[in-house]
């Protein structure tokens, strides 16, 4: 079976600054891979390259076996800053993404799709409301609904819960993990939150810090599913796994602290 996402020797340069230096990562269909690393290490750059938003100077990205040359309907993105259009209602924000994806479909059918997507994230009641009338967590859910609505093969999430408070974040992580398990979508998730990665991911890709960042390790997460944040820490292997990740991120200082 071919990989859902195949990143091979990818290099990205911003002027004189080499952000990514031959980064490689393979994501299997239906798999959730978390990309973790310090801020500014190039995680988002890598994700943008997969989305087709980022010009690269070397290497290649393929999605579903097809080379990525730009954005495409097989890949949908959930942005860190929700990126909803403030003059559109939640439903219209979802419709904006649906129209180009399902060209020629009747307006009624598109509306059904939008409402189904909003229902999936529990926002049916907020369909008519504008982004400034809903909470930060709800905005991010609309962002997820917008991405899911186009039925992508790969869902790309760029620190989707980074700007939310801890309680809201927890609720959304649970919801995302349920949705992903139901839909079987392949997920590439950028995060700097070790607990988020352990809760959601099948494998965790650790990025070294730039310049010239690359994927340093890929760590499998053999924890049972469905995962429950309350009992996750009691699963065998959790502690050593978390220790290993923190060691990587904080250079072993964590053990001494």
């Amino acid at each position, binding site marked *: 079976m071919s990989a859902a996402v195949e990143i091979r020797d990818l290099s990205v340069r911003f002027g004189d600054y080499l952000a990514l230096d031959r980064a490689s990562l393979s994501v299997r269909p239906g798999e959730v891979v978390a990309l973790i690393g310090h801020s500014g290490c190039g995680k988002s750059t890598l994700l943008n390259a997969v989305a087709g938003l980022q010009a690269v100077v070397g290497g290649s990205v393929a999605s579903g076996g097809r080379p990525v040359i730009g*954005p495409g309907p097989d890949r949908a993105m959930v942005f860190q800053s929700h*990126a909803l*259009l*403030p003059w559109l209602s939640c439903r219209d924000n979802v419709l*904006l993404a649906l*129209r*180009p*994806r399902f060209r020629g479909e009747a307006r009624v059918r598109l509306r059904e799709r939008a409402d189904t997507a909003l229902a999936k994230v529990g926002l049916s009641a907020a369909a008519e409301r*504008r982004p400034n009338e809903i909470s930060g967590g709800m905005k991010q859910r609309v962002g997820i609904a917008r991405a899911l609505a186009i039925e992508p093969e790969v869902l790309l999430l760029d620190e989707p819960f980074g700007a939310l408070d801890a309680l809201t974040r927890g609720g959304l992580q649970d919801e995302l993990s349920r949705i992903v398990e139901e839909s079987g979508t392949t997920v590439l998730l950028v995060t700097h939150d070790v607990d988020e990665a352990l809760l959601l991911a099948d494998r965790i890709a650790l990025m070294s810090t730039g310049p010239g960042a690359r994927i340093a390790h890929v760590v499998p997460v053999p924890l049972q599913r469905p995962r429950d944040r309350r009992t996750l820490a009691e699963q065998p292997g959790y502690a050593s796994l978390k220790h290993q990740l923190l060691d990587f991120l904080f250079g072993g200082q964590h053990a001494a602290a």
Partner: protein
Amino acid sequence: MTRPRRRIHLLDRPGVGAILLGVVLLAAWHWATTGGSVTEAADPEYAALMGGAAAQAGAGLPSPLAVLEKAGELASRAFDGSTPGNLGIGLHLLVSLGRVALGWAMALAVGLPLGFAIGLSPRLNLALDPYFQILRPISPLAWMPLALYALKDSAAAAIFIIFISALWPILLNTAAGAAGLRAEWRNVARVFGLSRLETVWRVVLPATVPMILVGARLSIGIAWFVIVAAEMVGAQSGIGYFIWNEWNNLQIAAMIVAIFLIGGVGLALDHALAAAGRRWGFAE
């Protein structure tokens, strides 16, 4: 335990200070114009300019009561158009507003599409920007003689002046708004595969609306400034002509009434455009 009583100072209440100041200024005006202060003799040059009118008795500034009386008199025949050479002040005002509306609408018709095109096309911007840079600082009134010569009609020339003065704020704000589309919104359009046309129509245009409204508000303010001056040169109607005509007749009280009226109308225009901004802009 007693809580300290919170006292709100009288001058912290909205309007109180402004009303008090107004009363003081009116009183000062009244005292200065009627309080026995002797009017200085007009200097000869001024008298010559006035054709001797300044030498008439009572050539000093009118008192507030006199202005008020004049305002009542002007209001009573504000829309009287029976004597062609002596139209009511309301009709002059409507003529000016009509010219501003026409010139401003033309500026919108040209400025919006052109500003949009410039904002979306860096090449077009590079080609046109040097011309804008040199045209923009020209006082609109500098065009007046040329406009009169070319258009051979004072009303048309005034409308052209309004067009020229209203064009730049609309054009440049629209261009800046369209060019400064937020990267995240641009990325949304790209990721979800919106066509070029869809991106412009559904993302860039609505995103630019607040900047367009800023340009529209700035430009109507400038247009209202400029129309008065433009009508003083050559026009046979309009509020600017009215002031100049009253000046020639040394009707100082009527001039002052017209000055206050111009202020009031300008304020109303600004508020109308601000309301449009709240209505059609978007909150984040």
